[in-house]
């Protein structure tokens, strides 16, 4: 920290300088921090732990600011360490802080620098052995990602500055740097440069620094909200891509998921500003990059600066004897190679294994080459063109727009490869580019049109004479505190209000549904299907680009479902795949599960129906089977008890099995349910039904199991699937036949019911916490069910209305229905059964009749 910066900070708040204006500014910042906390809480942004840190910041901010400058850094360190203890607990944090102190201490032992570096490498090698689990570590494994995030890169930069004596060092500075407050919540953390960290500490008017911090916290929040919108509503998985339009949406939306990182980084650095660290921006309009070097400079700026400092400049200074341009090109190529290697190294500390995948290698190789070519192009000393006429300006603006569009398209295209599970999967998605239609053209023109306009407006300094100077002059103008404060207060209040139910009651229901989905950090439909299917599949690889899915998995106990599956799931050799083990019982995660002698999660029933009883067979997946609740809490049991308590004679038989899809339901209906003399069959389906069918078929195909159903065999042949094909490619190819397969399976169930004199009822059942702006997929499911010939097609989308996701979920890592949700489902089943009784008494309903309106009451 320079003397000049201290004097600026001291001057702004020394006792004699507590002017009325400064007092008002201080109060205004404190109020804004509270408002930002309320906003994060209302919109449920970031983790609970981060919101706790934000609350702590709101409380300690006034104390911190009122302290004399020399006490602030120690105070910041104490708050940071206290936060670590409160979030991680005493044992884990003692290990984390202890190991951190050893690493920092090693840098400063009074020995020659080479000995210190050697000792550091030795310690890191020992830690790497523990991280690989070759030796069991005595500390909890939970500390690894945070220890990694704190030290894996920052220690490199710190040592660099230590070796070159390019920054001041002290006990408090070092602790503040490595244990900085928000780090405990973020395994992925911006690589803050130590020299910059020291140089920017209170280097300006403190109120300007704080105000910038609040602004970036809000900017981060906005980016996180947009990210959630994209995640919930825009993402198209590789298997769901339809035509060029779908591929374009897939690549753009996948790229825009980076908004989460960018929002997170803004939030982190914004928070640090509130403690006086006037750190620079982490990302800057990266969507508007007009070349590959420009993209590299705008996205994750801290990473770029770290690579420049530690790799590019040292390499360039060694290589420039070959010539400046050659030196730059070689240094760039090596820096990119190091970037790829360091990503694998980062993966190792965070996840315990190196990341070496072909898409990853190709991505970094191609990007490295593109940036190098761009560097070569820029390094040639050509002069910038200065427009002299309007026509020249217009030409430059058009060139800028064109370059921005070209860069964006190339980067998003490359990104789609990077995020693919394999090159084969990516190639399969590329096949969709053969199918062009009006929608694809419209979508592309619209997105690229908006992008061009934004590039021209934001990048006017590049084509408008004098615009750059104007922009710089504007930046140099005295800081307008109150204008910034007003904007921050208005934005945070607006965002908070959008999340308040009383305000939402005045809004359009679709908008409310969107806001509700954004506020709930749950999985989108695609990921939810993956998560639920994963139950009996054992280990699933969590997509490294899917933070939501990863967070859900990370909360889940290790081996979740495995013990249950071993006791309750019986594998079959035929096409049905699995069923429940007959006469089994287990208490798992506090819930008791019992199956009867027929492999149903239900009490025992004879095959022969007793006289005077109406029998209803229920078939569905884990939701209806009652995963997560005890035997006596399952919706089917509750509904049956209620009906019989009223003196009615009903038997509800639960044939549902965890993980079943419509094909398996049809097979189970034919193989098992027909034996029980059922009067009615209720078939429960979810929004992700088609995905479940595809995932199931992929498993069957990949396992080499004989496909006994001629129709499915025909589809597999039509899709051109061969036994040696990559799993992802099989999935993409089969996905093209999702609707056909769904229709076939539903028709098969409906036909079986009709042929055996059973009334068939198809029921759309919602997933907890998943809202969509469009009901297109639900409408499609219902249409398919009607077409299949069900006697009744019902939609109970509103069954959970009025309850929050948290109230209905089994646990924070399992979004199956809990006891409350089952009681709501039971009420609805009870109504359906009773309503059907009335319908039957008054004459059979016409096939395909939709009774949602009456049932929904």
């Amino acid at each position, binding site marked *: 920290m320079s003397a000049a910066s201290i004097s600026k900070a001291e001057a702004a708040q020394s006792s004699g300088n507590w002017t009325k204006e400064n007092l008002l500014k201080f109060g205004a910042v404190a109020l804004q921090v509270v408002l930002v906390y309320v906003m994060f809480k209302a919109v449920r942004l970031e983790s609970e732990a981060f919101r706790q840190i934000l609350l702590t910041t709101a409380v300690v901010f006034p104390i911190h600011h009122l302290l004399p400058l020399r006490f602030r850094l120690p105070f910041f360190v104490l708050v940071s360490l206290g936060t670590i203890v409160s979030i991680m607990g005493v044992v884990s944090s003692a290990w984390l802080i202890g190991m951190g102190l050893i690493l920092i201490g090693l840098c400063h032992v009074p020995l020659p620098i080479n000995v210190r570096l050697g000792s550091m490498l030795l310690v890191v090698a020992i830690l790497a052995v523990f991280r690989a689990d070759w030796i069991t570590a005595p500390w909890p494994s939970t500390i690894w990602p945070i220890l990694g995030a704190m030290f894996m890169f920052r220690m490199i930069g710190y040592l660099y500055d230590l070796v070159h004596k390019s920054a001041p060092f002290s006990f408090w500075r070092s602790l503040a740097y490595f244990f900085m407050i928000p780090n405990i919540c973020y395994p992925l953390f911006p690589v803050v440069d130590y020299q910059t960290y020291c140089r920017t500490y209170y280097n300006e008017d403190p109120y300007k620094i704080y105000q910038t911090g609040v602004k970036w916290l809000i900017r981060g929040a906005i980016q996180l909200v947009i990210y959630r919108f994209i995640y919930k509503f825009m993402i198209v998985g590789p298997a769901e891509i339809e035509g060029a339009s779908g591929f374009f949406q897939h690549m753009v939306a996948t790229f825009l998921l980076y908004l989460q990182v960018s929002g997170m980084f803004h939030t982190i650095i914004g928070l640090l500003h509130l403690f006086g660290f006037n750190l620079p921006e982490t990302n800057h309009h990266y969507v508007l990059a007009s070349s590959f*070097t420009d993209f590299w400079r705008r996205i994750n700026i801290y990473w770029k600066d770290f690579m420049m400092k530690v790799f590019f400049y040292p390499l360039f*200074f060694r290589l420039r004897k070959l010539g400046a341009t050659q030196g730059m090109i070689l240094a760039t190529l090596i820096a990119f190679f190091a970037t790829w290697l360091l990503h694998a190294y980062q993966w190792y500390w965070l996840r315990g294994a190196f990341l070496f995948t072909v898409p990853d290698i190709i991505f970094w190789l191609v990007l490295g080459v593109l940036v190098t070519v761009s560097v070569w192009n820029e390094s040639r000393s050509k002069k*910038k063109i200065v427009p002299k006429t309007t026509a020249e300006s217009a030409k430059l603006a058009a060139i800028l727009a064109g370059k921005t569009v070209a860069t964006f398209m190339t980067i998003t295209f490359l990104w789609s490869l990077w995020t693919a599970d394999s090159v084969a999967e990516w190639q399969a998605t590329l096949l969709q580019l053969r199918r062009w239609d009006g929608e694809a053209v419209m979508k592309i023109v619209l997105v690229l049109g908006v992008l061009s306009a934004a590039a021209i407006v934001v990048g006017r300094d590049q084509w408008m004479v*004098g615009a750059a*100077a104007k922009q710089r002059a504007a930046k140099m103008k005295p800081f307008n505190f109150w204008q910034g404060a007003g904007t921050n207060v208005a934005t945070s209040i607006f965002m908070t209000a959008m999340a308040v139910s009383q305000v939402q009651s005045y809004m359009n229901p679709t908008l409310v549904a969107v806001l509700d989905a954004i506020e709930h950090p749950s999985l989108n439909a695609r990921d939810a299907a993956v998560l639920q299917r994963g139950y009996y599949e054992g280990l699933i690889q969590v997509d490294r680009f899917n933070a939501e899915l990863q967070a859900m998995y990370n909360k889940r106990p290790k081996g979740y479902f495995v013990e249950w599956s071993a006791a309750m799931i019986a594998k079959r050799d035929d096409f049905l795949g699995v069923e429940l083990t007959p006469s089994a019982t287990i208490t798992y995660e506090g819930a008791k599960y019992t199956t009867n002698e027929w492999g149903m999660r239900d009490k025992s029933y004879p095959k022969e129906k007793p006289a005077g009883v109406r029998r209803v067979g229920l078939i569905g997946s884990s939701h209806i089977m009652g995963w997560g609740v005890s035997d006596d809490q399952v919706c089917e049991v509750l509904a049956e008890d209620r009906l019989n308590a009223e003196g009615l004679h009903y038997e509800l038989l639960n044939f549902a099995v965890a993980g079943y899809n419509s094909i398996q339901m049809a097979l189970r209906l034919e193989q098992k349910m027909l034996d029980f003399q059922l009067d009615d069959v209720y078939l429960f389906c979810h929004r992700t039904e088609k995905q479940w069918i595809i995932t199931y078929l992929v498993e069957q195909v990949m396992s080499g199991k004989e496909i006994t159903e001629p129709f499915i065999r025909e589809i597999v042949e039509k899709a051109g699937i061969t036994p040696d094909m990559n799993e992802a490619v099989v999935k993409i190819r089969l996905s093209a036949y999702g609707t056909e397969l769904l229709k076939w399976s539903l028709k098969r169930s409906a036909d079986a019911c009709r042929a055996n004199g059973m009334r068939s009822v198809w029921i759309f059942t919602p997933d907890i916490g998943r809202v969509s702006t469009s009901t297109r997929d639900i409408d499609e499911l219902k249409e398919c069910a009607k077409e299949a010939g069900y006697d009744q097609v019902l939609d109970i989308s509103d069954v959970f209305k009025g309850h929050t996701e948290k109230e209905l979920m089994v646990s924070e890592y399992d979004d199956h229905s809990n006891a409350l949700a089952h009681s709501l489902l039971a009420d609805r089943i009870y109504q359906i059964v009773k309503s059907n009784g009335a319908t039957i008494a008054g004459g059979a309903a016409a096939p395909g009749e939709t009774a949602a309106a009456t049932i929904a009451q």
Partner: protein
Amino acid sequence: MSESTQDIQATVKEYLLEAFLPGEDPDSLAEDTPLISGGILDSISTVKLVTFLEEKYGVEFQAHEISSDNLETLADIANTIQTKRAAKG
């Protein structure tokens, strides 16, 4: 004959205006205008500037000296050159 700090600033300013800010009003580039954080100097132009300074003033830069501490403003650049020349004797 050694140049004064003001002379160095003027020379560097002239170079920056010609190389990276053609057509700009010279008054828009003040001695405290942020060059790196303000986006005037990126990695490539920084390397070009350092090469220019080395050739013009006969000084040598080390990789770790390429930082905002030394190159953020015209004033910083002039001070760095003066310090290097003084150290060189």
